[in-house]
């Protein structure tokens, strides 16, 4: 269903006038800009078969979409029809099979384990299904979630994600370390890195194949699984089935979809997605002084574990709350290395804070639900939340201090403005 995107009343025919008069001022919201350029937008349900209607689409051809918080907040485990999605290459031609939330029917799928090992192996899907399985409930979050908020300092190119590029998901599969041990690969002492590769390929051979590398002794791998199920059923194709490497607590891109290959190697992958993309500078950087192509493996680190974060789920402006008592609710999570110990909530833009009540999480990597009572006054109310964990890690009051030219790992104190 094509819907008219007419929110601002600017048709693309009138765009020339808009551009001439107002320019592409940074103050213009992405949605208004888009409406100025395109007068109709394809709905999410038309892009990926089985996805809910009304998802916020960032890139139709790559199936990139985020979940409106009004859909996200209703579920303990984010269902496949509303879970955000990010693919790296177009789902066209022979890649059309993964443009669906249905599970792939590929019983002959295999995974090759190779590299600096004396005994390379190939393992079939049925071999994997016959091994002991464990469950991991973990937040899956795009590294770019919240990118649009960096625009308050300087806009960052790419999909303008708000807070909906995340979900709380139950995965089930074979524990990675035990699996590697059982294969009796006889790896070389120098095999310090594990690289995961998926089936998907760049649009042209000149592009870089998507791959992710992890240090073999990273404790996060102790909890990693070769996942075969998501929310109790075979993993939907669009979410990486039939096999996805899940490293609980790690940003989305680190959880390689359509897993075909595991390499044990002395070096990390040469893929641009490992060495340039999906990285964070080692220290603060200034807009204009450090660009998105300035990343090296020496001045930056991959977007591994989730930075501690909390997000307000209600009330949202769409809820049109009335003045008076209100329950503020939301979620909080981190990389799973320590429990979330407090979430502080403010209803007056940071003037006063009170501790929220936190419900126990299902696992170290799952999100915690929290709630706090507050009063909404007539006029403008600025709601804020800030999580802290047992290691003392907390969210920056000003997330813009972590500005980076690829717009990753936003974890500034969340801020929702409600006008009553």
């Amino acid at each position, binding site marked *: 269903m094509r819907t008219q995107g007419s929110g601002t009343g600017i048709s*693309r025919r009138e*765009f*020339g006038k808009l*551009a001439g008069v107002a*320019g*592409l*001022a*940074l103050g213009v919201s*992405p949605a208004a*800009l*888009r409406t100025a*350029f*395109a*007068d*109709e937008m*394809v709905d999410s349900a*038309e892009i*990926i*078969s089985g996805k809910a209607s009304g998802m916020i*689409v*960032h*890139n*139709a*051809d790559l199936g990139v979409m985020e979940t409106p918080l009004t859909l996200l907040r209703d579920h303990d485990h984010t269902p496949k029809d509303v879970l955000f999605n990010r693919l790296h290459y177009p789902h*066209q*031609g*022979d890649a*059309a*099979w993964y*443009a*669906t939330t*249905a599970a792939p*029917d*590929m019983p002959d*799928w295999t995974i090759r384990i190779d590299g600096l090992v004396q005994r390379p192996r190939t393992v079939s899907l049925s071999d994997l299904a016959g091994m002991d399985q464990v469950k991991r409930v973990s937040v899956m979050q795009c590294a770019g979630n919240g990118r649009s908020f960096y625009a308050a300092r*300087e*806009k*960052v*190119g*790419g*999909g*303008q994600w708000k807070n909906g590029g995340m979900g709380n998901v139950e995965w089930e599969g074979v524990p990675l370390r035990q699996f590697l041990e059982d294969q009796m690969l006889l790896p070389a002492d120098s095999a310090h890195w594990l690289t995961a590769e*998926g089936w998907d*390929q*760049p*649009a*042209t*051979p*000149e*592009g*870089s194949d998507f791959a992710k590398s992890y240090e073999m002794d990273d404790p996060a791998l102790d909890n990693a699984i070769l996942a075969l199920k998501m929310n109790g059923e075979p993993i939907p194709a669009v979410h990486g089935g039939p096999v996805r490497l899940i490293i609980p607590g790690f940003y989305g891109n680190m959880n390689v979809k359509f897993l*075909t290959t595991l390499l044990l190697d002395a070096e990390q992958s040469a893929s641009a*997605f490992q060495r*340039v993309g999906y990285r964070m500078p080692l220290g603060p950087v200034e*807009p204009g002084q450090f*660009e*998105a*192509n*300035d990343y090296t493996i020496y001045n930056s680190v991959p977007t591994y574990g989730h930075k501690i974060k909390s997000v307000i789920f209600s009330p949202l402006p769409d809820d049109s709350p009335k003045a008076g008592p209100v329950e503020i609710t939301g979620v909080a999570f981190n990389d799973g290395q320590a429990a979330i110990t407090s979430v502080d909530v403010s209803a007056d833009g940071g003037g006063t804070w009170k501790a929220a009540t936190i419900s126990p999480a299902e696992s170290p990597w799952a999100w915690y639900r929290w709630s706090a009572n507050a009063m909404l006054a007539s006029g403008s109310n600025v709601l804020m939340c800030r999580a802290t964990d047992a290691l003392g890690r907390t969210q920056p009051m000003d997330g813009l201090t972590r500005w980076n*030219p690829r717009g990753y790992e936003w974890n500034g104190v969340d801020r929702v403005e409600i006008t009553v």
Partner: protein
Amino acid sequence: MRSLACFLALTGLTLSVSFAAAQNRFDLPAGPGRDLVYGHCQTCHDLQSVVDSAGIRRGAWDAFLDNMKDYGLRISDDQRARILDYLATYMGPEAPPAPPVAEAVAAADGAQIYADTCIACHQEDGRGKPDEFPPFAGNSDLFLSPDFPATVVLNGIAGPIEVEGAAFDNEMPPFDFLSDDEIAAVIAYVRSEWGNDALRPSGFADVTADEVAALRAKPMASDEVHALRASLK
């Protein structure tokens, strides 16, 4: 790791869902280099990512293009420089200049339009890319009817086709940002290059700009173009 595709083809395993890529239409401000953006970027994705990034600095657009290279963007250094100038000027933090006043335009140059617009998929040698983009060299579709190629350029085409024995299943977006003159010129060019003259039926006339204008007035869906092709075969 695409051996799986071959495997699927060999076993005849059919996959239940094949969602055609859903492209949105975005019109960018007129300016030099805009058509290069239309021609090259939409090979893989619609222009939402460009529009959503509007307002970033030249240096950020420069890095953006490097990033796209990692995704598989193929452009020459000259094209890259022209695309960067366009993005920095018309999609940068400053208000873009007023659209250029229409000047006496030189006659459309089919070879130049091909190099700027078609080459990303159909390649410099007109041979396309196996399994991805059909060739023009030796492609008898060019002479299915005087109008057919212009209909494809204006409306795009989607669906499985076979060209000179090779199968393709992809989607070409509309290139209707090209003017009537430009479409007529590039089709005349493609019909005469790479030995295609030899395929030309005797007395076969090239499409004129006026005829392109008439086709433009009757837009078609990309799957209707696919059906039209079948009916002409």
